[in-house]
């Protein structure tokens, strides 16, 4: 068998890594330069960092509230979608029901239309339909959590279905015979075996909600504004504050990296090996 040359692989992956990481590095470099330096001598080298942009962003109460909103909305949405998606997939995987595959396909068709198509119906739902007294879902965190479910729940179902289908039904049956209730079968057997799939679903839905701009910009005014919508506030008629925007961008990147780092260990394959004879 022909052996691959390791040098080609090293060069290739170094190049890919450089192309991926350089924009992030450059973003960071821009965030630690004063505005005057950004336009005078464009320089990608990091020298004499200026932390003023960070102090300004961190000191801005409004931006801090945007960050909290982003965190609450993304985390709430990711948890809700992953939990609901898990139970939906468990039902699809384990129970016989008429039109099961059609239902599954119908669910994921939500992902096929561009999000802008949903703007007007969602706006009307949040202002006219789902109203209790004076309470409206528009410009609320819970409203945005539910809005993102429109897109993330089908995605969660789509990603979790193969995971649930991949867990042998004999394990459920063995647990039932061993004296487990339906709830125990889910919590003791199925849920732990789904952890890799759940981790992947959790992080991808979280990242989608964290990065989303269009719906957040349209369906929030003040109370539930997110960090991505905050970015646009620095593009004004008098100019663009690139340093501040780069700093906010770095702030948006950091939580995503932390979340990914936390769940990375769960994203491993082959956990079900040894369950049944293959």
């Amino acid at each position, binding site marked *: 068998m022909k052996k691959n040359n390791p040098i080609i692989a090293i060069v290739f992956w170094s190049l890919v890594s450089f192309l991926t990481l350089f924009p992030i590095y450059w973003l960071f470099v821009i965030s630690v330069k004063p505005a005057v330096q950004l336009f005078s001598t464009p320089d990608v080298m990091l020298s004499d960092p200026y932390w003023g942009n960070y102090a300004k962003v961190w000191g801005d109460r409004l931006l801090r509230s945007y960050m909290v909103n982003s965190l609450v909305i993304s985390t709430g949405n990711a948890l809700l979608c992953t939990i609901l998606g898990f139970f939906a997939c468990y039902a699809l995987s384990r129970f016989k029901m008429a039109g099961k595959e059609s239902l599954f396909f119908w669910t994921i068709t939500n992902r096929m239309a561009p999000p802008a198509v949903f703007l007007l119906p969602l706006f009307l739902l949040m202002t006219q339909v789902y109203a209790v007294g004076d309470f409206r879902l528009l410009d609320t965190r819970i409203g945005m959590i539910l809005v993102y479910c429109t897109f993330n729940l089908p995605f969660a179902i789509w990603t979790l279905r193969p995971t649930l289908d991949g867990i042998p039904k004999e394990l459920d*049956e063995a647990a039932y015979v061993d004296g487990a209730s339906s709830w125990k079968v889910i919590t003791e057997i199925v849920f732990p075996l789904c952890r890799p799939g759940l981790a992947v679903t959790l992080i991808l839905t979280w990242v989608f909600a964290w990065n989303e701009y269009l719906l957040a910009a349209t369906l929030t005014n003040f109370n539930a504004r997110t960090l991505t919508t905050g970015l646009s506030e620095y593009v004004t008629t008098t100019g663009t504050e690139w340093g501040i925007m780069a700093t906010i961008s770095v702030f948006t990147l950091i939580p995503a990296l932390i979340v990914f780092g936390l769940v990375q260990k769960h994203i491993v394959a082959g956990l079900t090996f040894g369950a049944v004879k293959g």
Partner: protein
Amino acid sequence: MAQVKIDNVIKRYGAVQVMHGVDVDINDGEFVVLVGPSGCGKSTLLRMLAGLEEISDGTISIGDRVVNDVPPKERDIAMVFQSYALYPHKTVYDNIGFPLKMAKRPQDEIDKKVTGAADILDLTKYLKRYPKELSGGQRQRVAMGRAIVRDPQVFLFDEPLSNLDAKLRVTMRVEIKELHQRLGTTIVYVTHDQIEAMTMADKIVVMRDGRVEQIGAPLDLYDNPANIFVAGFIGSPSMNFVHGQIVNDGGVRQFRSDNGLMLPLPHTNAADGTKVTYGIRPEHITISDHGVPLRVIVVEPTGSETQVFAKHGTDFIDAMVKDRFKAAPNSEVRFAIDPANVHLFDRATEQRL
């Protein structure tokens, strides 16, 4: 321990009926094997016994209790699956102890029972391992350990050895039999392997197409099969069948095949001219100068025995002889048949005469 009564059980999937009124009585402490070809309904019957499959009609009782609508966890049964069904994220200890944990037993009792089961099954040094770190035989023993600790009224085994290699299968067969002798618990065991059935069972239930063909002790089925299906299924190599009729040749009643092969007839009340299927087991044929002449097709020496395939026209007969035997293809061989070992079956109904 408990007796199990399966009474006129029917199973339908929509309009399709797959089980047609099955009746089986299993006594306390009995080792009963459900055997039959793929699709005969043996696993479905076991799953209905376990509560994993609903019963369309009829009743299943364990002990004195009808369990038709009783969930699996309340049937006081333990099941060993063909695929082992070990929980891959739990250690051997946790796998074996899982039923006790579900029953909310105290930790010291769990410890005692798990270590006791591990001791019986020679798994003590593997208690901290995960299923993926075990061999096939060890996994099977863990599955058995998980069943033992429950101390159930009935053990259910669903083809537990079919994923093991031939050598390990023999070892595990002995272990399961030994376990039954030690525990004395009622066992219902499903297999498609008639050797497993013959070697392990107190009682065999032969099934075909969702019906019970015959129930009996292993040697009873071997000696007195109720019909052609049971006669062909029980015993290895399979019984020879030759189609023909009873003839009276100058006062001597004989069997004459459709190809004119004349074979000795056992005592029978069937009238001359009755169309029958003649059955003789390969191991009941000997090679003798006074036997019936046939042409050799193939000779297969197995070491301890020699299997000789021969034919007369389109009638094929094979013999399993103890002696070493060599013959060229197409040479003549004479098969001697003791009429006492011959089985006659009605050609139309396939039932034993």
